[in-house]
């Protein structure tokens, strides 16, 4: 039994490594972004990506869709977008004289919601509801979304004019929030070389739907001892502590993370262990995914903004304050 599990973990690790390598053929650097996307798809959650334009966010998602042989659709969120443009609507067919459903682009395996904060709240809400429920109601009928269903939403941290900031309750629906940073000069040079030689590198499919489901099962088989579960809960609970004497960083937190964050940390830590080829979770797995999981779930206080602290700095304080098991 133990050996069989080890084999599953080993196979999963090899599969992930192949997917990473394949995506890496097209995307230079951005290893954290690729890992975050893979974590999202394996943990069965959705990923919000924040980064300035031109950092290969869309390319990365396309590459992920290419290596997974999953259906991929992209929606450019704009202020005039309607919920029906996303989920679908009932259309009248004159030949038969009846209303028939027309499914929207949300019916896909991998969905790129580009610049999600440019659409009004009702569109965001429709998408986020689909993300949470995994089904969409058109007319009087409810249609399940295909499995796996993975949404990667992007948003631009600059140019806030004419945007609709995602509410905290909606942000909580995203399993992870990845931040895309500028590449190093060496990486940028490699991008230039690669784009000149072959602007559109074809990728091999290494992850089919069954493969994704196998990875999910492998992640579920990763063991997290009670002490690790307690550690996860302690971290999330510490984000809600209001006693400044106990936890000095708490003055920077207006609202802490929800219990959904504990679940997300638990799931992501198991995937992280899978990346390392382990069938058990270590505290470092939890710590490594904590910024991804918590940064969009913590509402910073005025004091944090006044001191120009971002969520990552507060999470660093949180991780330093809670003892590891």
């Amino acid at each position, binding site marked *: 039994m133990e050996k069989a599990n080890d084999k599953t973990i080993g196979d999963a690790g090899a599969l992930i490594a192949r997917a990473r390598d394949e995506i890496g053929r097209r995307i230079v650097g951005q290893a954290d972004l690729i890992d975050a996307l893979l974590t999202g798809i394996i943990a069965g959650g959705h990923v919000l990506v924040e980064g300035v334009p031109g950092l290969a966010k869309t390319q990365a998602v396309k590459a992920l869709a290419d290596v997974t042989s999953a259906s991929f659709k992209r929606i450019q969120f704009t202020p005039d977008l309607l919920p029906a443009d996303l989920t679908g609507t009932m259309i009248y067919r004159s030949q038969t004289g009846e209303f028939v459903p027309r499914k929207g682009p949300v019916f896909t395996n991998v969905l790129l919601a580009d610049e999600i904060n440019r659409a009004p709240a009702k569109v965001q809400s429709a998408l986020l509801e689909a993300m949470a429920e995994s089904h969409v109601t058109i007319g009087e009928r409810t249609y399940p979304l295909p499995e796996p269903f993975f949404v990667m939403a992007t948003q631009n941290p600059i140019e806030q004019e004419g945007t609709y900031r995602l509410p905290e309750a909606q942000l909580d629906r995203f399993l992870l929030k990845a931040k895309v940073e500028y590449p190093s000069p060496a990486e940028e040079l490699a991008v230039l070389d690669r784009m000149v030689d072959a602007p559109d590198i074809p990728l091999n499919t290494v992850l089919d739907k069954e493969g994704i489901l196998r990875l999910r099962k492998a992640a579920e088989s990763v063991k997290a001892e009670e*002490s690790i579960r307690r550690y996860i809960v302690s971290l999330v609970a510490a984000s809600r502590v209001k006693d400044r004497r106990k936890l000095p960083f708490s003055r920077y937190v207006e609202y802490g993370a929800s219990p959904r964050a504990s679940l997300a940390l638990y799931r992501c830590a198991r995937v992280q262990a899978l990346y390392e080829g382990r069938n058990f979770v270590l505290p470092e797995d939890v*710590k490594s995914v904590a910024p991804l999981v918590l940064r969009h779930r913590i509402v910073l206080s005025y004091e944090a903004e006044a001191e120009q602290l971002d969520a990552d700095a507060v999470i660093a304080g949180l*991780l330093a304050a*809670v003892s*590891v*098991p």
Partner: protein
Amino acid sequence: MSGRKLLLIGFVMVAAFELHAQAILDGLRFQPPGFYVGDEVKLIMVFKTESPVALNLPETYPQSDWAEIRDISVDVEEDRLTVTVDFTPFAPGTRTLPPLELGGLRIDGIKVPTHSILDKSYEGVRALRPQLLIPGTRLTLSMVLSALVFVPIFGVRIVRRLIQRISRFRATHRGGRPARRMRRLLRRLKSAIGSTAPALWYGALTDGLREYIGKRLGLDCRSSTTAEISLFEAFHGAQGPQHQILEVLREGDMIKFAGRFADDRRMQDALKTVDSAIKEWEKIHANV
């Protein structure tokens, strides 16, 4: 009687005594023979008389600035006459007794040698002297003054040295505190082998190790994972005690989180490894 006193008496005898013709000074003595200023003295003079002398004691005794005559008495025998003068001299040196008029007998020119415990002879009434100090006062005062000057100086030095020694002692004591605490934990864990679940046992051991490492490196390692500790400069590529500690932390992780089995012997070995690693680290720490 000393020769000096006899000479004085002789001098007094030979000195000019002017007596009436009827009485001749036959003998003279002082009682006590040698006396000092302030002593009560008797002057006994014996006269030979050829015919009876009419004596009359004065109502008031003669005054003198150097002696007080308190009493004069006369004892008459057949051919002798003994005159006794009680007086107290106030001045040293040889002075002449004031003339005594005793009716038919006049005594004059009697020299009185008064000794003095002081070397100087009488120089008149001296002015008031300043108050005398009790013997030993000067010594006491000088000692007190010395104490006032030197005690603060030496006191400050002594206190400073004392503080330095205490600080050194405290530093040494504090410096060894993490190791002592760790050894206490090791003793507790030794007695808990067999009665505590391995995961809990290793949990306590690794918590103690994190605290020890934190104290030694001046960091808070309670929230540091084994992987993070291995990245510390002190642990980077280390082969010494840090390496041994790291191995125990990794072993602890496997038992706590991977569900690996640990028997009593393995736990004993872990304790020995930690104990020796701490001894070695303490030596290195003491030399730094």
